[in-house]
């Protein structure tokens, strides 16, 4: 018989249970399989009731994030062989209310994301006849890293502050705010600062730094937040020294 590996999955079926429980499955061990392939094997062959999210299977859509052996990972990018000999524990991302099995509710993030106005804001829009907004490669490099975010929520699952203080806007939303602040075409930094410079924004962050460690796209949200703190502090002192200047 081919080799197999044990997968322990956290189950939560609200119509049947009020507390989650563990269910164990034996799946064939294939060295080229990802954890997601093992879950798909379970769903297709062993237990069709298992619920989880996935789509692209190539680390782009950001929907397959789960806790694997306690670490937030994209399951489509985590080799089974990285966890041999097993058992492998699969849980929903921490910090989010669980809807069912491995599916967390991301509504809170989506609401917070909209608060930071994640789009290019302009005070005045030049007429179309003026042509497009040009940007140099250096200007692009300023924000490009932050634009790689795929909203996978691994950073939220890694952030203890988000779970302890649910009001915290959180790493990805702040990194995405920076993505627009640092864009040479954007003029909304002051507006976003109003949302982010309070206790639930950048100052809730105590710099654990794990968000950047787990990010599969090297977005470095922790760096984004610390840069933001520095900018907010400089702004504050500027407004004290030059109170008449535009806040």
């Amino acid at each position, binding site marked *: 018989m081919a080799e197999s590996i044990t997968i322990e999955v956290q189950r*939560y079926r*609200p*119509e*049947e*249970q*009020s*507390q*989650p429980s563990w269910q164990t499955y034996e799946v064939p061990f294939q060295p080229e399989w990802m954890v997601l392939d093992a879950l798909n094997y379970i769903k297709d062959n062993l237990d069709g009731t298992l619920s989880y999210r996935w789509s692209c299977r190539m680390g782009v859509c950001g929907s397959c994030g789960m806790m694997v052996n*306690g670490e937030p990972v994209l399951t489509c990018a985590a080799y089974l062989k990285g966890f041999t000999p097993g058992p492998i524990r699969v849980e929903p991302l*921490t910090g989010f*209310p*669980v*809807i069912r099995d491995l599916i967390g*509710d991301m509504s809170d993030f989506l609401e917070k994301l909209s608060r930071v106005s994640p789009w290019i804001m302009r005070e005045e829009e030049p007429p179309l006849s003026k042509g497009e907004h040009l940007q140099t490669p*250096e200007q692009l*490099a300023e924000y490009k890293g932050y634009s790689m975010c795929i909203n996978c929520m691994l950073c939220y699952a890694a952030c*203890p502050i988000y*779970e*302890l203080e649910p009001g915290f806007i959180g790493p990805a939303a702040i990194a995405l705010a920076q993505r627009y602040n640092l864009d040479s075409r954007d003029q909304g930094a002051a507006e976003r600062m109003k949302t982010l410079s309070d206790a639930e924004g950048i100052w809730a962050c*105590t*710099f*654990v*730094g*794990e968000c950047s*460690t787990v990010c599969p796209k090297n977005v*470095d949200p*922790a*760096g984004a937040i*610390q*840069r933001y*703190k*520095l900018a907010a502090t400089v702004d504050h002192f500027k407004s004290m020294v030059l109170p008449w200047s535009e806040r």
Partner: protein
Amino acid sequence: MVRAVNPDYTPHHPKWYRRRIPIFWWIRKRAYVKFIARELTSPFVAYAAALLLMQVWALARGGAAYARFLAWLQLGPVLIWHGALLIILLFHTVTWLNLAPKAIVLHVRGRRIPDAAVVAGHYAAWLAVSTFLVWLLVRGW
């Protein structure tokens, strides 16, 4: 087939499960332990600052008070405690300086200064200030 055995469940309505955060959540991961350790060193940094202020205060109250303060500093237990304090402060300082490039992004002529250079700059500044203080102390008056 729905086996509705959870009496709190309303069909077709989400019933979220929210876990209780364990008190010792930070034991789970090395990075969290390190973070908590760094946070816990903060009151000791405050203590060190207060100690310096007390020294200045003792000095302001005249030679006798200052001599008493120095004698207290030289007590065995106080020496041991302040030796431990030094280690705690070093841990705080080193972890803090290593994090500096996360917040400070500098550009020189359009090129971003690498993180290692930002860290090195901080250590160099630390060394310079410390050397100056040592020089002040040992040259005598």
